[in-house]
């Protein structure tokens, strides 16, 4: 189980990392993306409490932070599953069968894109280009890339995930 945001913000080690990142840039506010990544790496998503914390740290309005968090597909403002399954929906992958694959994954896991399984294990999302247009359909599960994925292959990959 990962930490709650409260625990995170009272963790001295974490705050030290925040301070360090802030100093890394000529302008403090430039550290925003780095700080958001830091939080997401620690607790898998970026809760509103953390967004408010960053807003104060960098003297930016909380609304602006929300704008940044929601702008990037890679950031999550809600808790996500242990495994994040990203399915490319850009044209070349679609032509190579991404649509069928997505439908298969959706039925298999019983969730729609944007949802998380009730046991908190899988989160399914659509993403734009994963930069593997020549090897579609492409998916990414956490940090691992899989290409030319067929429905059967996906079932095999799923078996590996604990």
């Amino acid at each position: 189980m990962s930490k709650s945001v409260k625990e995170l913000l009272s963790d001295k080690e974490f705050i030290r990392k925040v301070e360090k990142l802030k100093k890394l840039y000529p302008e403090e506010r430039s550290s925003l993306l780095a700080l958001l990544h830091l939080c997401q790496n620690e607790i898998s998503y970026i809760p509103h409490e953390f967004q408010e914390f960053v807003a104060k740290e960098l003297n930016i309005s909380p609304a602006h932070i929300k704008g940044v968090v929601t702008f990037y597909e890679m950031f999550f403002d809600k808790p996500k599953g242990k495994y994040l399954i990203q399915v490319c929906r850009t044209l070349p992958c679609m032509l190579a069968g991404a649509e069928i694959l997505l439908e298969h994954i959706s039925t298999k896991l019983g969730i729609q894109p944007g949802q998380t399984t009730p046991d908190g294990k899988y989160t399914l999302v659509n993403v734009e280009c994963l930069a593997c247009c020549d090897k579609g359909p492409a998916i990414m599960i956490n940090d691992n890339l899989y290409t030319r994925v067929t429905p059967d292959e996906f079932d095999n990959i799923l078996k590996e995930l604990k």
Partner: protein
Amino acid sequence: MALVLIDGKEIVVNPEETLLQAALRQNIYIPYYCYHPSLSIVGQCRMCLVKVEGAPKLLTACTTYVPELPKEKKIDGKYDMKIFTKSEEVKEAQRGVLEFLLLNHPLDCPICDQAGECQLQIYSYEYGNSRSEFRFEKLHAPKRVDLGEHIVYDAERCIKCTRCIRFCNEVTKSGELTLIKRGVHTYVDTFEGKSLNNPYSICTADICPVGALTYKEFRFKERVWFLQATNSVCPECSRNCSIRVDTYKGEIMRIVPRFNPSVNGYFMCDYGRLVSERIKNKEVREIPSLREKGILEPRMEKGFYKILLSKITRKYEPKDVAVILSGRMTNEELESFKVFSLIVFGEILGDVLYITGEKDDILVKDEKRANYCGAKFFDLKFTKANENIKNIIKGKKLVISIREDIFKGIKEEQVKEILSSVEIFVVMDAFFTETAKMSNFYIPLASWFEMEGTTFNYDAHLQKISKCVSPPKGRKPFYDVVSLMLNLLTEMEIKDFETAKEKEIESVKKVLDTFKERDVMKGGFVPWFKEVKNAIPQLKNISLKDLAPLGFSAKGKKDGDN
């Protein structure tokens, strides 16, 4: 300073201004959405695309500065830039931008509050295409979102120009708004648990070029093309924001700020704007009323004033009289009060109740009435706030309160105690206030929006207020009441106009001296003097010649009278 040829016309572009600003300044129109003269420049909407000769693609005029070229590089030996705003290429781009903006727009103009003053409608008509290539189902986005106490948002109508966001970041510096998500999914939102509630929030609806932001107090009230506009001034603090009052069938539907660089710029505060809502709920009484056997009964005008005048004219020593005046009185009203006071009491009485409150560093001033500056010019005495009401009234026999609800929120027994020595209590106000209900004589006055007049703001800036709606016959501006009373006095042969006239000239001279010092005489003769004289026939024979030794003269016949 650069010289630019724009559609064959020469314009000058200063180094600190953009092409769009320079063009607009020199009456060349380029369409734009995201640019707003009081906000930062973002180049967000692409509506202002123009062709710059030599540039590989169209450029946004709102972000283009024009550097001066060295002599040998000048175009046609003369120009620093050559611009086309009406070429086929530009027109094609404008059509394209509008088509994109309308791609997912619901086209719900028939039920949209902005219809009639919407920049999407206006530009579609002027620069748009009558059809769209889009053949798919439109994307849906949040509608009727409650952004705050006043503002409602419709993401489907929003063109993401970010004016509202920049307003909150740059003008109010409260930063409530942001764009969330990306691409076609983008829309304006607030942070969780926060809302758009700054004291200027309704200005976002003014600057929103489309129907995406509307405010609850005006939503669905009236189609804008039925509204009748009258220019006036906000009465709620000494800033005196310039406003436009939109009415329909004699009712104020909304108030919007009117651009005035030396007073309020483009904006006004929500509190001032919503004064029209507050006065809607106030109790009014249209007819003068007289207390008899404990009850305040409406009376016929003439009879009422005859009784009043016979009871107060030269019946009390000035030391037994207290008059409470208000910063809500226009210059004309203040001046006519002085005349009234001179004739009825033999000298100029009166205490202007000085009411202050919160201020901010945007527009709101601490003086909570419009015309304190005028009252200062008219040399009237000031008394600070309600605390001192008791002291003003204590031991007096006749008390007159004009345009101030002096007993608001004070318990009846306490009021009675304050008034214990008072034989006659006269209240004149636009509303039938708590104070009015305690009076022996109640005179209904026209409200700020029901009369003509002038007012000075904190900085001695003179502006005109206008009759935006007509009051019912019984409610008159204070100067009309004075005129009526003075006419009756003539009839009743209680008069002492000669000495009054002399004193009046004295006081006018004094006031004019102040004006001269403050340099507010530039626009010709101050209008109040003429107005007052028109209202009060007995003073007609004071002419501008009487004032000639002061060096003032009427500029043009229509301001003067001989």
